[in-house]
């Protein structure tokens, strides 16, 4: 079997979202190459923002640019985007690699038995598969610090629950809909909680407030309940307990 050549990247589509937001759309699917282009434009605009640009929101496949149209005309914004896209060397460096401690003990991983049964696996096998993968941080959404992670092994691609389960605890490591995520603010969820990390991806009183960036990579490192408790005390005191490589 041969793999078809990837389609050469075409120019993005510019779509208005009202008069104060512009969507620069690079594709319609969840694809690391498309996400790379989104993040490259995001970085190039951050390095040299046109006056009137308010903030940008990178997603799987597009960059939303919020702007003040009384300061920055739409045409001038489109021209600025085309200029940043044309500049070579604006490509973003590779994201950072994080090692995130994760406890898969059912006492903390409330749904691991249920998820394992649905996947036709033993809970320990689910944990091993989950911890063996590398996850790309595609985008944030849904809740503060709630990052959508790609790279979940096929065997763990369970559909989301038909109706949400009660709020997950902070630090819940979840799977659902073919993706992985780390919960922050406790909220009801349709995902399965298969682990818990002591790390806080969002801590308003800490610098950095948000630990990871879109484009970073996360690996989960299994820890037992005792180690989890120790790490959680350190995280509660404001320490970053995840490991990080450039």
């Amino acid at each position: 079997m041969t793999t078809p050549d990837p389609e050469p990247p075409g120019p993005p589509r510019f779509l208005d979202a009202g008069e104060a937001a512009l969507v620069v759309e690079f594709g319609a699917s969840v694809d690391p190459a498309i996400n790379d282009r989104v993040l490259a434009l995001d970085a190039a605009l951050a390095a040299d923002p046109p006056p009137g640009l308010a903030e940008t929101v990178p997603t799987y496949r597009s960059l939303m640019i919020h702007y003040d149209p009384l300061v920055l005309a739409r045409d001038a914004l489109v021209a600025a985007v085309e200029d940043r896209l044309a500049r070579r060397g604006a490509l973003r460096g590779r994201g950072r690699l994080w090692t995130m401690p994760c406890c898969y003990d059912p006492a903390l991983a409330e749904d691991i038995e249920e998820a394992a049964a649905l996947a036709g696996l033993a809970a320990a096998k689910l944990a091993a598969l989950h911890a063996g993968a590398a996850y790309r941080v595609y985008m944030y959404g849904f809740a503060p610090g709630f990052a959508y992670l790609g790279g979940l092994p096929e065997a763990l691609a369970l559909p989301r629950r038909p109706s949400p389960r009660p709020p997950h605890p902070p630090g819940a490591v979840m799977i659902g809909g073919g993706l992985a995520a780390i919960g922050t603010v406790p909220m009801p969820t349709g995902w399965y909680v298969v682990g818990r990390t002591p790390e806080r991806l969002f801590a308003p009183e800490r610098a950095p407030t948000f630990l990871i960036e879109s484009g970073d990579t996360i690996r989960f490192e299994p820890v037992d309940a005792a180690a989890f408790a120790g790490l959680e005390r350190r995280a509660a005191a404001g320490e970053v307990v995840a490991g990080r490589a450039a």
Partner: protein
Amino acid sequence: MSGAASGPPVLRIAAAGGGATLQDRGRYGAMRYGITPAGPMDPLAHATANRALGNPPGATAIEVGLGGLTVAAEGAPLDVALAGGAFRIEGDGRALPPAVALTLRPGTTLSIRAGRSGAWCYLAVAGRIDVPPVLGSTATHTRSRLGGLDGRALAPGDGLTVAEARAALGEPAMLRAPWLDRPPGTIRVVLGPQDDAFAPAEVAAFLDRDWTVSPRGDRMACFLDGTPLVHARGHDIVSDGVAPGAIQVPGQGLPIVLMADRQPTGGYPKIATVIGADLGRLAQGQAGTRLRFRAVSHAEAVEARRAEAAALEPPVVLEPVVRTAFSSEFLLGRNLIDGVVG
């Protein structure tokens, strides 16, 4: 009444019907991390109440919903201003017009109750409501428990300390703010970003049909009832960014307009986006309000935004309240379809 004998005055919440929150202009700069902007549902009314007192337009004020609110000043008199929908306002037992500024003296109360039209009313205080900003903003987002008072709605007994308080108004004065008289009816939109997820005939139907504001709405979204729209090819898209006023159409086909507490990203096609100048007016529509959408160009939307910004540039004029103006005629006349306060 006890209360601080010295120190800054306090605005005390005497009664709260739910849905009253502290809001500044909103929490911007961290949408990329999943942070909802929040901020006022009707930014124009919020800014008007602040400007009437000489505050910056985006200063922290209380947003009052249909549940109403009663407040009292403690420690020292406070100048306050109200602007928004046609709520029923009573100061010290006396009926006041819905857009009004006055000095609230200790021992008297100000009550704000839902009225004939409008869904949100803003109570601004001269000076600075002293709550700690979170990520640069005091805006309350109850869903993620950020901002305001521990991320929650105001409750009876809460006290808001007012720094740099002023009390110079004396007698109640009406706000001359004709830009707040925005009859419901036609809401302007810019089509997209996913109008191509619908056949042209469905986009036309979206613009031709009457829609009714559903009672299900909250600060996150305005739900509309009517004849469902049909997607051209499914209702799931890969999540992308969400702008204020985005009109998403989920599987059942009824439009949902995303408001101040929207999530920064979402996964349903967005047929159109309500223009900035009309979003507050839509927010003021009580359940049952009928409306239509009209597509305008990007340039027209920018022009409307420019006109709104210009209205707020000069100081808000305060006029003495004439006693006869409190007749029910006055209250009924304001903010209704033909209502003009002259």
